[in-house]
């Protein structure tokens, strides 16, 4: 093929790719099937630092607050072993804010989740089709941090 014609086709293909990428804002994002091991976390306290450092707002130390935030409609996440946080958009066929117990049952647990992974504008999203393993709460960090926040554990109870 004529080298100039090849270059021209290349440029046109590039232009099409760029146009497609710009249109990505309205097109569905391709999903990847994944299996991720990680801890179920309260993403607001974890990312905002509102109650302290990230290692204090996970695990048993933050369990009650994680229940509050999940029931409060704050996005629940899976923090994978490499630190990547996945926002859970569906869990075992249920929407995450459905008024059921499904997402509350696994707060702070270390799980292995199988499902569909989407990435959009820097955020990882996960549709959990199946929890293939659940080790329960393995991060017993209340031994190091106490309870965060302190009022999650009323002394007079």
């Amino acid at each position: 093929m004529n080298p100039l014609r090849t270059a021209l086709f290349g440029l046109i293909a590039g232009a099409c790719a760029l146009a497609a990428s710009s249109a990505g804002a309205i097109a569905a994002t391709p999903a990847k099937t994944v299996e991720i091991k990680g801890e179920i976390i309260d993403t607001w306290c974890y990312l905002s630092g509102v109650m302290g450092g990230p290692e204090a707002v996970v695990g048993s130390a933050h369990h009650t607050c994680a229940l509050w935030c999940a029931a409060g409609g704050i996005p629940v996440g899976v923090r994978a072993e490499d630190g990547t946080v996945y926002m859970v958009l569906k869990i075992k066929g249920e929407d995450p804010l459905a008024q059921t117990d499904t997402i509350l049952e696994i707060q702070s647990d270390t799980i292995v989740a199988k499902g569909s992974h989407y990435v959009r504008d820097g955020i990882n999203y996960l549709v959990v089709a199946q929890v293939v393993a659940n080790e329960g709460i393995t991060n017993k960090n209340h031994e190091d941090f106490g309870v965060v926040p302190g009022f999650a554990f009323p002394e007079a109870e």
Partner: protein
Amino acid sequence: MIFKTTLKLALTISIGLVTTGVATGVASAEDFSKGSKAATFGLRGETKATFSGKVVDILCELSGDCPANCGDGNRNLGIVREADGKLILVSKNAQFEFNGAVDDLLPYCGKAVDVDGLMIGNDPGVKAQIYMVQLIREKGAADWNKAELWTSAWAKRNPGAAGKGPWYNRDPRVAKQIKKDGRLGLGHAADKKYQEE
């Protein structure tokens, strides 16, 4: 002649590509803090941000799985920002009682809105910031609405949980989990041991 025409066409496309790339870059670098009246709290990576965009059901936006009315409050919602087409995850409303933003966004499902609030976060595990919405209005409306609908919506969803004290100490679903596994989630014996220490 053919050579010259082809070269001209190639050059035109190249310039177009570069221009588009530069324009995209400029849009993504826009300063959204200009004009914001958001309250600040010293949160991690906190930046004021006011912008316009369309309220969307995030899963619908990503996958094409689109129930009516953005999932009727059961799904995480976001805003596709008008200026750059970015999908912004709205995690939090303006209340400080562990409340998400879905009840504040849902009335605007599929509509264009103006919002004011904070972009939050700088964790290496999330390559973008999440949003705390403090004010919302239909795009171009005169008056802002405070994004504080969650607790009243909760009260409507839980008529049997009326009483004194914050909602989270009265929520039946939370109470069920604490009754089952304790406040540490490790069983009541672990709670007792912790209290005794």
